[in-house]
């Protein structure tokens, strides 16, 4: 077994755009160990999908190296394809006119799995993702949640050593998201030599599922470690949550206040409230923040010092929220 399931060394990927060159990945170096669920957390456009595509042999790196199960993604792509699979959230690969079972059979044949073995595995997978009663149903008659479950079953059909999940719960409701996360956790727990690398921009998902997390922003890895390690990285700072009356449409620019390392503001117009999450160098910055918010005509409803969560860690390290 390779010492690392996934390893990248100074991985760079650029794209030519009409506005010049875009650096989607900028010297990304990560190591993922066997048996881990490794999360890549970052906002849209951070480079998460580019990373997965390179590791899945769908894209060449511009420079740097990447290895999956010890195989080079450029020179040993065929060997990698034998041991990986991938599922992307919001994608529903498959053929609408075929049934759930027929679709899974087709994808099993891409791995040359003998029919009797494929049949057995498909039976287990549809049961695992709760689609047993839909096994004969055509794919185009499934709901979005069911399609995503089918997508996950498809990605497990070859029993991969490394499973890549790109935003696996994107667009799913709370229940379906929870179920998908449970299947992933269950799969790794019952196969300790397997590895999952998942990208997400949902904090809760990363917090619930991942053994270690790499926080990426603008193509760079801002930090990497377990949740505890990430919290420890920001232990010198303090974190506050301030609930204020609705700030929508106003230039709040809290980040520019001295002592504020990062801020994330979310609005709820219906409730008439905004939530300001702050990462500060010290508590001494709070009076300035309050006076700034008050100067905008906003009333302070609640002020609370918080323990560092993944979200506040993200704000602390990146300087802004993930939204």
């Amino acid at each position, binding site marked *: 077994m390779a010492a690392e399931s996934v390893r990248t060394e100074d991985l760079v990927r650029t794209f030519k755009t009409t506005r010049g060159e875009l650096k989607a990945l900028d010297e990304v170096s990560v190591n993922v160990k066997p048996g881990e669920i490794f999360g890549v957390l970052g906002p849209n456009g951070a480079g998460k999908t580019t990373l997965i595509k390179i590791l899945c042999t*769908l*894209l060449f790196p511009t420079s740097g190296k990447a290895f999956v199960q010890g195989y080079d993604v450029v020179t040993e792509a065929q060997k990698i394809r034998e041991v990986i699979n991938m599922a992307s959230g919001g994608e529903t690969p498959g053929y609408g006119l075929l049934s759930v079972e027929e679709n899974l059979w087709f994808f099993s044949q*891409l791995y040359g799995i003998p029919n009797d073995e494929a049949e057995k595995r498909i039976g287990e997978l549809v049961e695992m993702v709760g689609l047993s009663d839909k096994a004969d149903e055509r794919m185009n008659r499934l709901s979005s949640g069911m399609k995503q479950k089918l997508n996950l079953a498809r990605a497990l059909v070859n029993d991969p050593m490394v499973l890549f999940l790109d935003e696996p719960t994107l667009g799913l409701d709370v229940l379906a998201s929870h179920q998908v996360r449970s299947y992933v956790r269950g799969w790794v727990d019952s196969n300790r030599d397997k590895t999952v690398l998942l990208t997400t921009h949902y904090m809760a998902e990363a917090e619930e599922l991942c053994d270690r997390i790499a926080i990426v922003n603008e193509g760079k890895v801002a930090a990497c470690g377990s949740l505890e390690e990430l919290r420890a990285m920001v232990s010198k700072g303090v974190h506050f949550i301030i609930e204020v009356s609705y700030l929508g449409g106003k230039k709040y620019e809290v980040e520019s206040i001295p002592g504020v390392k990062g801020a994330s503001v979310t609005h709820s117009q219906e409730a008439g409230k905004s939530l300001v999450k702050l990462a500060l160098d010290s508590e001494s910055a709070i009076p300035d923040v309050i006076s700034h918010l008050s100067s905008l005509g906003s009333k302070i409803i609640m002020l609370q010092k918080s323990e560092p969560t993944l979200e506040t860690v993200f704000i602390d390290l990146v300087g802004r929220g993930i939204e």
Partner: protein
Amino acid sequence: MKRALMSSFITTFVRPAFARGYIRVVGASRIMVDVISESTLPVLNLAAYVFTYRFLGAPAEYIGFVIVGGAALSFWMNVVWNMASQLYWEKESGNLEPIFISPASRMAILLGMAVGGFVNTTIRVTLTLVIGVAVFGVGFDPSGMSVALPIFLLTLVDLYSVGMMFSSLYLMYGREAWHLSALLSEPFMFLSGLYFPARFFPFWLQLIASAIPLTLGMDAVRRIFFNDPGLWELGAEVVALVVMAPVLVFIARRLLAKMEDLSKREGRLTLRWQ
């Protein structure tokens, strides 16, 4: 060693090719309206030519020409519009990623698509032929069937190899490649002599037309069934068709590998709505 190679061939080529062909046939057969319309509507097109020839007082064999040409046209259209653009549609429907991250041979996928398309089209063409022959009362020499059928199949192998070649272009260029399909439709229909004997072309045009497998295949089949003098000697046409098949498959394979490589460099392999 030999056993391992055989096992790898079955795993990465035979099973994926069979699966891709199978689902294409099964999927297409589930829209009965399509099966019926694609079998019966081409008869209207044939009828237009048949009535024109009858009005002009053309020999009775020309009706047979039209029927055989109509059958070949269905295959050509399947190659140009369906087979060639298949990888493009796989990309748009999100299936290209799972296919390309699997160890399955890309050529196996193309072969599966080709065979699946061939089976589907054969079913539709057979129905068209039966209707056409019954309605227009075409007479032909059935004793030539044993020779004509292998030649026709050989022509189709060449045609679907052309389809494999163009699939690679669609993989890279997406919708831009539609223009190519358009280019391959009308001009090729004309040059192939689908509705008239290509021997009426000037010599230089006959030479150009002979580079198209469809021209040679049609010419040979018509010679056998309707005693047409034809473009070239039958043997020469068969040799040309036999030589074309491996050459076209080879080009298709190289082109596909090249386009996949280029797409990965440029980041266009899974880029949608190009």
